[in-house]
């Protein structure tokens, strides 16, 4: 017996309206952001800005404005975080994926911790320690905090990337006489590169968007774009906070459009195994 189905036009309308509602839920808030970014005067009871303009864009980008400096600081910190994380995560991921490790369970647990445990106590106490050794309010301090969290993500994704490479390819290379390092360099690493790039992108984005850790460790000398945006929002400067939010979104959305090439479904499926 055929299951009961609704007539085709009804399902089509239903499908379209669900998608429309979803689009509103997803893009509505973002549209609001755009409105505020270009508003000059907007107060109740008008539903839309009374005046549009670019005055606040000038204010944001003026030489004395903090926005450009914060953007620079954010990007620089994110790049350093990625470099540091990858440098440490690639060997670790390879070891986890391919090699026999003593205390493997304990090591896995240790790497699980930063993702399984709220980071707030960590940030709060790191800030205290950094105060005493003079790392508070420095770029290096912020990079270390970002890296300690991003590292774990990088290790997980890297190990998944390495694990998804067919072992026989490496074995073939070794059988042909390549040393372990040559095999890694010419066979394993290139094959894992898409996954590694994906992990680099995630770490970069996580660092760029990171707020809580920087709130405790970076303030007041290091201002990243999220902190600037937060301060502008709390100060009621919605135009400025919307513009800085847009700035923050550009690398994120840009990567989103690009990352699909690098994140294959099977790599994603292996995350967390």
């Amino acid at each position, binding site marked *: 017996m055929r299951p009961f189905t609704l007539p085709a036009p009804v399902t089509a309308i239903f499908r379209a309206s669900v998608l429309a509602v979803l689009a509103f839920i997803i893009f509505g808030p*973002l549209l609001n952001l755009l409105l505020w970014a270009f508003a000059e005067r907007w107060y109740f009871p008008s539903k839309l800005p009374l005046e549009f303009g670019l005055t606040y864009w000038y204010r944001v980008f003026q030489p004395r404005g903090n926005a450009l400096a914060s953007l620079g600081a954010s990007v620089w910190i994110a790049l350093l975080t990625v470099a540091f994380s990858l440098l440490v995560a690639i*060997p670790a991921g390879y070891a986890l994926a391919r090699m026999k490790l003593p205390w493997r369970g304990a090591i896995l647990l240790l790497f699980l911790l930063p993702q399984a445990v709220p980071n707030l106590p960590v940030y709060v106490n790191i800030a205290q320690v950094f105060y005493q050794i003079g790392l508070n309010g420095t770029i290096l301090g912020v990079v270390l905090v970002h890296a*300690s969290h991003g590292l774990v993500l990088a290790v997980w994704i890297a190990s998944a990337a390495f694990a998804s490479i067919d072992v026989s390819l490496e074995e073939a290379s070794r059988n042909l006489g390549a040393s372990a390092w040559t095999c890694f360099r010419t066979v394993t690493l290139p094959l894992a590169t898409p996954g590694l790039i994906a992990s680099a992108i995630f770490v970069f984005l996580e660092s760029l968007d990171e707020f809580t850790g920087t709130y405790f460790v970076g303030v007041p000398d290091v201002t990243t774009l999220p902190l600037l945006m937060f301060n502008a929002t709390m100060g009621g400067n919605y135009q400025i906070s919307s513009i800085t939010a847009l700035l923050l979104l550009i690398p994120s959305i840009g990567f989103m459009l690009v990352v699909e090439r690098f994140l294959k479904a099977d790599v994603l499926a292996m995350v967390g195994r």
Partner: protein
Amino acid sequence: MALALIVPALAVVTLFFVAPLAMSVVVAFRGKGGGITLEHFAKAFDYYSTDLLFTLAIVVLSTLLIGGVAIAIAGYLTLGGNARAVAILRWLYRWPLFIPFVVAGQVMRTFLAKNGMLNHVLIGSGLIEPLSAQSLLDWRGIVIAFVWKQAPFVTLLLAGAMASLETQHIEAARNLGARRLRVLVDIVLPQVRGTLLVGLVLSFVTMLSVLSVPLMINPNSPTMVTVDVAYRINTHGDYPVANALCILSLALSAIGAAFYLRHASRASTAAT
């Protein structure tokens, strides 16, 4: 050799994660004279018990909603009939994924206000009366912001896992006349349960640590414990009570971790 490769990563995690965490425990329990005391926890409970319950309720509710949304979207992406709808959905759902929590908090603040865009649209389309418009800038706003931001992440994981399933089972079931909902619940979901759990636990723990969203949407009591921690430190310099609160939220996250560890050990015993 293997150990040598992994030691740098271990060192970073130990120094910059485990050590401060241990410090947190020490400071939370350390009394004025140096002995062990529970007075900080007592004060934390005294002042913030409502907020602790509130935090747990918000995060649990958000996690459940995220699960529901992720299953629905990923399910449709895998089993959906209309190819164009699937393509649109696939493009649509991942946008919030790349928006940081702090921006999500900011956009929700103006979107969910009593005279914000959501209410304007609801009133404009005749769905609600102008006088009954409510501001959603309370616990509901926090839940909405969390689900909005995290659901795409779990959906991404789930969709990936579902995509790598063998299609024979699904096709066999469809050929036998099973409705798609049935296929989703009986065949697909059991196989991706592990990934779903990973995604939900990660989200649960992440949400427990978010400061920006509650600070921007609803910093007044009742609010999430993260706001209280920041307040204790920034305004009073009160590290002991702040750390006590952190330990308590650690305990909350242990609920999530317990779920994950149970699954992980079951999976590994099944594999051996």
